[in-house]
């Protein structure tokens, strides 16, 4: 029997959480929850501290394995990258950090410099190429982390509170970069606890509370007429308990 491979148009990657829970040492921190991440969208994962936002991201990205339940990518797992709240940069120059990411992907040596320089330029960092990554400002470090993610040519980009430690100008630069990814067709999944940021960026909102999925709605619905009482309270800036 032969398998015919049909050439299907490139579809947005689709990730299904199937009764996923994460309970290290028997203590349930997340779930059980079931949800779909699909479509070419920007999903904002929201919720108070300790709601399980970061855990959800780490499970989705494969950094953590669920204690029970399954995570299934439809088709094969797409290329992914993740930007962390505090970027972890190697103790080398900005340029060397990017070249390293290319080397890991087995990009031929002679192409690395050029591609790394392109990425630096794209994120407005060309003047800082030779500077040690660790002495850059918080905003510059986060942009470097975005440039590194860019070089991984992800189909899905996870961002875990990428702007929570930044000043407004740096936040603007990071949000512009996220837009850039989005316009290039990259699926965005991002956590934030900032409602204003969510209004600016989200196509879809997932609200978590105490490790449970409370609501998953299109952004327009979530901000204007949230379906759940928790959603309503959250949008109106009330504290969830």
């Amino acid at each position: 029997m032969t398998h015919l491979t049909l050439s299907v148009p490139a579809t947005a990657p689709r990730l299904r959480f199937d009764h996923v829970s994460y309970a290290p040492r028997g203590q349930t921190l997340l779930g059980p929850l079931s949800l779909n991440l699909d479509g070419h969208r920007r999903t904002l994962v929201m919720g108070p501290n300790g709601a399980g936002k970061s855990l959800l991201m780490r499970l989705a990205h494969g950094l953590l394995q669920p204690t029970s339940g399954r995570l299934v990518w439809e088709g094969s797992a797409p290329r992914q990258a993740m930007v962390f709240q505090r970027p972890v940069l190697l103790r080398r120059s900005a340029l060397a950090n990017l070249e390293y990411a290319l080397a890991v992907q087995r990009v031929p040596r002679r192409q690395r410099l050029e591609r790394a320089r392109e990425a630096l330029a794209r994120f407005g960092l060309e003047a800082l190429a030779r500077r040690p990554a660790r002495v850059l400002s918080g905003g510059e470090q986060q942009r470097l982390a975005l440039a590194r993610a860019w070089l991984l040519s992800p189909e899905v980009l996870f961002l875990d509170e990428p702007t929570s430690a930044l000043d407004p100008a740096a936040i603007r630069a990071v949000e512009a970069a996220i837009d850039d990814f989005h316009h290039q067709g990259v699926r965005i999944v991002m956590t934030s606890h900032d409602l204003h940021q969510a209004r600016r960026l989200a196509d879809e909102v997932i609200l978590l509370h105490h490790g449970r999925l409370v609501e998953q709605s299109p952004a327009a619905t979530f901000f204007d007429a949230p379906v759940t009482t928790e959603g309503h309270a959250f949008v109106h800036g009330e504290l969830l308990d």
Partner: protein
Amino acid sequence: MTDSAFLTALELVIGLDADLLAIVGLSLKISLTAVAIAALLAFPMGAALALFRFPGRAPLIVALNALMGLPPVVAGLAVYLLLSRAGPLGSLGLLFTPTAMVVAQVILVLPILAALTRQKVEELHGEYAEQLASIGVSRLRRIPTLLWDARLSLITVVLAGFGRASAEVGAVMIVGGNIDGVTRVMTTAIVLETSKGNLPLALGLGIVLLALVGAINALAHLLGEATRRQLG
């Protein structure tokens, strides 16, 4: 006596005493070679121990930590037994040569470097692990990455090893034999001069040894500071 010791040390250094220079040169050559060889082996070993989980890992780490306190005379004795005429490697004729002294010091220094490297790399990996996993760096590939990024702490690790090698006397005495002009180093010379009652010379040599170790540490410190300033 202390005064005359300083005077003797000064005379030895200023006069560029040929015997002294030979002894100092040999001491440095043996200890630096031993530390270099040990570092080449211990860095990847320590990093692998930090990164890989395998059965027997915990006992291995405990053993390595315990061997940091290996008495030099015991290391010397082991190498002596290996290299003596009747020993398994006796045919090599290495006993009472500088090579034997290097071997003994490698055995002394290796556990120190490996155990400390394991500790430093594990610390750094705690910080890097998620990021490296995210960009798809294999465990094996992480070894050179983490060693390079830990280079500042590893300078200190190497210094600890060098301190051990240059200060010990038991191992080089047993396998080297303190033969004048062949295997006599600073520490064995000090022991000899002390037993002969030539205390000013012994103390003078001690002062020279201290100054040397101090100079090497200062150099490493400056190197470290320069790198730190550059890296932030």
